[in-house]
């Protein structure tokens, strides 16, 4: 058994895999230490440091595919990739395809990765730090896979010249207005900045969220499918969700109006006065 450690870095794994392949080491003889089996099956064989004779030819697409799948955190993170590499380099391209047993697991991981990147794009919530010398906007996010670095480039286009920071329990990114800096271990100061920030103007968004909801169409199951509960605690609107569901249930979902609107005085418009002119004081005093 050969046990390797790639420190969860794709490039390191790639070097190791290239070397293993050149010696035609069968996937059943290798495991990677980060998978928690290092102590149980410590390496009991060794191979020469020089590359072996086998020259593998692999499609270029495979390398991209493997790099993406490598962002998946989970069992056999690296050995699965080696098994795919082994089979494709020995002429079996089905190992990359969803119809194959191994290929379908590979594709499932890639799908999870894309989904998690999408979750980052959707559910990061920036809070402003006006006057700050560092980031103007900070966010705390807890991704389930190693997607932060690659997926956060998305915000460079969105945020223009603003400086922003996203901290997670593991890594962190900071865009300083010119370049994106990734720290594999998120600095404690970043984490504190992102977790302790005050948001004095957060109530606008909460108001919007609770009023755009249509209680007559209550469907919490569909919501949870799209917005998994693990994200609720870091979303400002997350705390509103249980209350809105209960309110809709007890209000028997009669109509779509939010309860805060229902109690307020209404205004019918009569055409007899001609066209209502709404340029009244209300809009002037703001």
């Amino acid at each position, binding site marked *: 058994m050969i046990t390797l450690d790639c420190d969860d870095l794709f490039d390191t794994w790639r070097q190791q895999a290239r070397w293993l392949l050149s010696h035609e080491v069968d996937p059943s003889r290798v495991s990677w230490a980060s998978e928690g089996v290092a102590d149980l099956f410590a390496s009991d064989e060794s191979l020469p440091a020089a590359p072996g004779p086998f020259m593998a030819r692999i499609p270029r697409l495979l390398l991209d595919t493997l790099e993406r799948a490598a962002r998946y955190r989970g069992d056999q993170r690296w050995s699965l990739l080696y098994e795919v590499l082994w089979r494709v380099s020995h002429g079996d391209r089905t190992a990359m*395809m969803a119809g194959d047993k191994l290929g379908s697991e590979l594709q499932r991981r890639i799908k999870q990765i894309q989904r998690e990147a999408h979750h980052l794009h959707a559910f990061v919530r920036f809070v402003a730090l006006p006057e700050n010398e560092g980031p103007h906007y900070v966010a705390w996010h807890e991704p389930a896979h190693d997607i932060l670095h690659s997926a956060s480039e998305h915000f460079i286009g969105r945020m223009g010249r603003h400086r922003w920071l996203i901290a997670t329990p593991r890594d962190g990114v900071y865009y300083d207005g010119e370049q994106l800096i990734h720290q594999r271990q998120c600095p404690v100061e970043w984490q504190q900045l992102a977790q302790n920030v005050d948001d004095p103007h957060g109530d606008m968004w909460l108001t*919007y969220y609770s009023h755009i909801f249509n209680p007559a169409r209550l469907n919490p199951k569909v919501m949870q499918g799209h917005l998994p509960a693990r994200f609720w605690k870091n979303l400002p609107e997350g705390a509103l969700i249980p209350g809105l569901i209960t309110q809709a249930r007890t209000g028997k979902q009669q109509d779509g109006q939010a309860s805060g609107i229902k109690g307020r005085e209404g205004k019918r418009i009569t055409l007899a006065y001609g066209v209502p002119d709404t340029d009244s004081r209300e809009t002037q005093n703001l």
Partner: protein
Amino acid sequence: MELIDKLSILADAAKYDASCASSGAPKRSSEGKSGLGATDGMGICHSYTPDGRCVSLLKVLLTNFCLYDCQYCVNRRSSDVPRARFTPEEVVTLTLDFYRRNCVSGLFLSSGIIRSADYTMEQLIRVAKLLREDHEFRGYIHLKTIPEADSALIEEAGRYADRLSVNIELPTDASLQTLAPEKQIGSIKQAMQTIYTGEQTVLNEPRAPKFAPAGQSTQMIVGADDTDDSTILHSAQALYGNYRLRRVYYSAFSPIPNSPKSVPLAAPPLMREHRLYQADFLLRSYGFTAGELFKGPGHLALDIDPKLAWALENREVFPLDLNRAEASLIARIPGIGLRTTERLVELRQQRRIRYEDLARMRCVLTKAKPFFITSDYHPHQAEVTSHLLYQQLRDRPQPQQMGLWG
């Protein structure tokens, strides 16, 4: 009135419009530039409300004061609802604030009709213009178009907005006359035509200013009158054909407070709306026509999906051999989607397709099983009558607990 009060009233008034898509815009980026915002064609759902709907855009009305008296609408002039009006600057402030927080990808702005159609349209355009020109906002903008507005105004709107939409509201002229007397099918279609022409004009002109690059959409209200699904989908099909609409949205009529007698007190089953969306998807992406889905007037079945219903009506097409059949036919097998079809075609170039491949691709095998053949599988259900298959495959509703107070 405080801004937050206006927001609560004008968001509450806007929730009946189903669309919240932010997809289809061209690539724009603010990297290294002043201003804010990006689009890349993909929509983002930034949140979901407990009704299962996506929050992608700040969806508000500029005002819910309205001269019209559309019976199904909570903002009709005879409705006793609180009223408010944003200034264009207020909408701009809210959009930019929500955008920076990453709560939305842009703005979807609509309005009640005040003073005149042209005046209302001018106000909507003013918001979009402020965002694009004064604030260099590159995020998504969807403007609702007031059908009676001057076509020059609609053309101007198209230069600022990614998407324009004119609501058809009701699928037939007769129902429009009864329920929305101030609206006319003629002006609605005229506005769609203006947008369509605008899109066509810049089509092969890379240097022309963009015109509503994410196209136009519309919304139909379902269940406010007794129009059947067949009429609805035939009318959707005509809209897709005549004006190249990107989407037709179906909005199940939602009961409104102090509902007038002309509209029902209860909502249609949400499943009806769901079936319409499924059928609509079959029209847009699977190559079905409305005529194939309906033999005559009537509704879609609620207990089976429209693709399964079609397969049961057309058993002579099945079972299909997955190793030989054309991709467009494979996509017609119930339980097998476009993505799976693609994967099957990819796989069969490498080797024969077997039964267990389908399980791995996570297609809905119980539905698909009677309709395909692989090298190691032939359906024993191939001889079973459609009626029996229907009994086996239809959805059985979960028993519902009654409310304690009825």
